[in-house]
């Protein structure tokens, strides 16, 4: 029995036809165009995803001055790497330390830094995640395979305003010799939400 409301209870083929009807009406009214919709779906399928955020993290790991700028003025610092756009207009980057582990949620809706991480994963939008991470962060993080010592403060950032958060994960030990590009390849989407940590690369 499936208790998760992660998928609709309405037949997807019905919703597909309903959307087709709405799309055709809005085209006739001059409010949308098929090619504009194609441009958007194409961008989020191919161009805008977690690799952008991973590049920001890797730069901050190798360049202390960049990290300082990133933590004090997120939008300007990501723009240095050519990252701007919808869902990253007001970016705040929060840094994990041995004392504080940051994790991001939007309890009221599903706000997420689209321009840095792409579209949110399904779990981020579920009542389960939105409802539980603020109150039982350790239990929820354990479901993602993350276990933190009790002395660590878990700081949950609830995206209630236009601010969009990116977690700067801790750089794993044993990565001193890696290039910026190799470091970026280690950084997962979940580590930048705070539901993951960056693992030490396999030897």
């Amino acid at each position: 029995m499936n208790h998760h409301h992660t998928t609709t209870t309405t037949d997807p083929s019905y919703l597909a036809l309903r959307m087709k009807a709405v799309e055709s009406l809005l085209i006739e009214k001059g409010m949308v165009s098929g090619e504009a919709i194609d441009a958007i779906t194409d961008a989020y399928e191919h161009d805008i995803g977690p690799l952008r955020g991973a590049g920001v993290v890797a730069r901050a790991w190798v360049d202390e001055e960049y990290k300082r700028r990133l933590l004090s003025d997120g939008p300007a610092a990501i723009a240095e790497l050519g990252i701007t756009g919808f869902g990253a207009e007001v970016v705040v980057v929060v840094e994990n330390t041995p004392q504080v582990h940051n994790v991001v949620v939007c309890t009221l809706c599903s706000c997420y830094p689209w321009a840095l991480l792409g579209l949110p994963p399904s779990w981020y939008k579920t009542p389960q995640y939105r409802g539980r991470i603020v109150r039982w962060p350790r239990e929820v993080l354990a479901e993602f395979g993350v276990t933190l010592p009790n002395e660590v403060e878990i700081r949950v950032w609830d995206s209630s305003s236009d601010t969009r958060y990116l977690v700067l994960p801790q750089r794993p030990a044993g990565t001193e010799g890696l290039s910026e590009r190799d470091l970026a390849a280690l950084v997962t989407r979940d580590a930048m939400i705070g539901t993951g940590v960056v693992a030490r690369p396999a030897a």
Partner: protein
Amino acid sequence: MAVFPRSGAHDLGGMEGLGPVPIEADEAPWHEVWEGRTLGATLAAVVSGMLVPPTHRAVIEALHPVTYLSMSYYELWLYGLEQRAIATGVLTQEEIEARLADTLSNPDAPIPEDRNPAILEGVRGLISQGVPPGPERLEQPPRFTRGDVVRTKRIELRAPGRPHTRIPGYAQDRLGVVEDVRRPMLLEDALVASGEVRFEHVYAVRLRTRDIWPDAGRRDTIVVDLWESYLCDDALPAANEYEEQP
């Protein structure tokens, strides 16, 4: 058991009984083609200026809680798109139902051909440049500063003329500390209530999780962005007294 008001089924923070987070590995941006088209059409309609108030949030938050919680994310987007097209006079419910009936009986009918360079350029700009975030400064300086202890208000949505708010239920009527001052932002409460475009100072306010749920981790905290009108300075302890509380 924590007792605090919820603004509706969407106000989920701290809800009991939800069960484990369903985690899917290697997920695509969407599972069905129509989901992407719904997102694309909504952004295109933003560019065309169709989606003025009511806001998407206000529309979906007005749904019955059972309906809200049974609809998927993109189903809520589609519902929001339809309702806002109706609210702004672009479509009528009858038009939508009639076209839906045509589409259900003839699913392979082609979508009208179109080219609209202005909308295409507009969505490219929206994706790559985003939405201008409003004024950097307001005439009135921020009332609070980093490190201030503040009290959050109770925002009663059943009060007349207040259909929407951005302060979660768990964050209401609490003591917290200003962690940072954000740039001014549009107060969606006022936009939804009366169409008023009002920018306010916004503060990242740090709450102690155990002040809300006494069984929470001793060190754990929540930081929530709150507009200035959600905050007051009634009967505040000094910052050092607040920090020293066990």
